[in-house]
């Protein structure tokens, strides 16, 4: 095991893109402002200078057009990384992703496949108001044919892209902009990661916190606070939202008999709805308490900080909900 290194989530993302570009000349990055601007969130800063405009392609504001072009290039043997600046703009590319990327393999009877990776910045928490604070993860996770990954840790920021680029099928990669400056430690030789299974980020025996994305660090923080009060909770990072890997969280629930699912997305018809259903279907008799959920409040996310904070689960909300569940 090599020595741990400390780096930000942004640096982890960038080093993965760089490694991918160096390793395979079929790989190229295309997206709005990825080149001259250096990436809307500075993730690709300096890459244009290093790799040139053929590998780091600035594109016009044509989400459907360039996402479709990425899918087409993948059909014709390239390994494009399409960056949609934020998940909010992905709606303009939905037809390409859902009707083309997700269907072509099945609809053609397996004749073609679409090895494209589509990254997008996600998350709530920077006072961007309703149109720039969407959590559309459940939309994507709804669609068979896609592989949908949520980057909730530094380890995954470093490794998920590299693994996604080895998939023969379209991969959607959710990156969380509120975590970009967050520092974390990963092994110096960290690289590809498994992209089929969820992961236990913290072991515990009293209750399972099941989450993804920004929920992972929030839940870990909540778990630390709860531990001080004698409550031992487990944190499950779903990571793979489609095809949803259920064994990990079902086993966790079988161990703790209690589950709280945490996500930013609106509660109705969400990832947590699905996880809760699966627990009901497959681990019903392991449950000692009803499954509970902490999700986004069902309002367009407002601009003022205090209202924005109140719209999504915070660490303190998780702590108090767990306490209520364990010590009614």
């Amino acid at each position: 095991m090599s020595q741990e290194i400390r780096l930000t989530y942004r640096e982890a993302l960038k080093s993965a893109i760089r490694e991918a570009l160096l390793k395979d000349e079929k790989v190229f990055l295309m997206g709005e402002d990825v080149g001259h601007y250096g990436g809307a969130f500075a993730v690709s800063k300096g890459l244009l200078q290093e790799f040139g405009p053929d590998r780091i392609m600035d594109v016009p504001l044509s989400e459907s057009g360039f996402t479709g072009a990425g899918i087409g290039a993948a059909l014709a043997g390239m390994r494009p990384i399409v960056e949609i600046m934020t998940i909010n703009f992905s709606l303009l590319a939905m037809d390409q992703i859902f009707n083309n990327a997700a269907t072509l393999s099945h609809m053609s009877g397996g004749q073609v496949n679409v090895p494209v990776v589509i990254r997008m910045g996600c998350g709530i928490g920077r006072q961007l108001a309703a149109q720039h604070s969407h959590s559309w993860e459940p939309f994507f996770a709804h669609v068979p044919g896609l592989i949908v990954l949520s980057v909730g840790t530094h380890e995954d920021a470093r490794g998920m892209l590299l693994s996604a680029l080895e998939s023969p099928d379209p991969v959607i990669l959710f990156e969380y902009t509120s975590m970009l400056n967050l520092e974390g430690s990963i092994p110096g030789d960290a690289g590809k990661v498994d992209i089929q299974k969820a992961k236990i980020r913290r072991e515990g025996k009293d209750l399972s916190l099941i989450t993804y994305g920004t929920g992972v660090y929030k839940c870990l923080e909540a778990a630390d606070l709860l531990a001080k009060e004698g409550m031992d909770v487990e944190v499950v990072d779903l990571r793979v939202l489609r095809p949803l890997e259920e064994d990990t969280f079902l086993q966790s629930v079988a161990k703790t008999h209690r589950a709280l699912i945490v996500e930013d997305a609106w509660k109705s018809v969400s990832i947590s709805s699905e996880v809760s259903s699966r627990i009901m279907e497959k681990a019903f008799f392991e449950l000692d308490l009803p499954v509970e959920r902490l999700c986004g409040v069902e309002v367009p996310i407002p601009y003022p900080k205090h209202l924005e904070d109140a719209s999504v689960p915070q660490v303190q909300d998780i702590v108090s909900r767990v306490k209520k569940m364990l010590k009614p």
Partner: protein
Amino acid sequence: MRLNKSNPAPSLTKAEGLRLLHQMTLIRRFEEKSAEVYTETKIRGFLHLCVGEEAVAVGVSQALQEEDYVLSTYREHGHALARGVEPKSIMAEMYGRLEGCSRGRGGSMHLFDSSKNFFGGNAIVGGHLPLSVGMALASKKQGKKNVTCCFFGEGAAAEGEFHESLNLAALWQIPVLFLCENNLYAMGTALKFTHSEQHLEKKGPAYGIETDVANGMDLLDVMTKVQKAVAYIRETGKPYFLVCYTYRFRAHSMFDAELYREKSEVEEWKKKDPIPQFKAFLLKEKLITEKVIEAMEAEAERQVQEAIDFAENGSWEKVEELDRFVYSEKAAI
């Protein structure tokens, strides 16, 4: 309509003339037979036929090479046949049989045959234009010399994807042929009700794209214009926009009372039917005889019947395989 007739007709050998006439005839017979078996409920779903538009499919395809990519719309049987996709596998596809070119998964609107570089059968209007841009971009990056040919109707020219794709193709200077089959009706709504500028060919130069128009009812004109377009693309690696004015003689799909156009209009266009026109040309130039035409028509008839027999005897994909290929069975790359 600005139909440029100034180009000289391409010189044809007897064999080429016969082959082209046969392709158009095969498409026509195939489409008619499809309509027939549709009414017998052998084919279901939507069925869009291209009767009347055969000269475009055949005229374009003859200019393409094996390594070129072709993407098409939901009215694509003619394009697929002209591209060399087997009539049997297309008919079996429409019957929903495992032996169909897409294992019966796609039906009439989703013909795929990767061995012929034929990439659908794309049924969201305009949705495949960005794909064609991406494929041409890949060719450029890979240093390939092939052309990507993207068929679409004039209805698609109203979609945002059309404009995004023309812009991207021009910006990136990539080898794609945007081939607009303007049959004057987006489903049942006439061009004049859907486009502020009905001369769609004006939209190419706005993006700095080389553009031309062709008389889609005249095989020779389509051939001439397409050969020129493809030669330009191969030479420069740049995109090209070609608008073929054409007309579908039959309804938009099967269940269509055609309330939106006069019968007399259809009759007028039928006088320009590309098949008798080309037949007359070949006879006049002594490139064919009545006897050969008769034999060729019998052959087309036989091929269509063979396709029907093949489809009738096809098998159904097992229900257990329903979820095969949701994710690729190809290994990770």
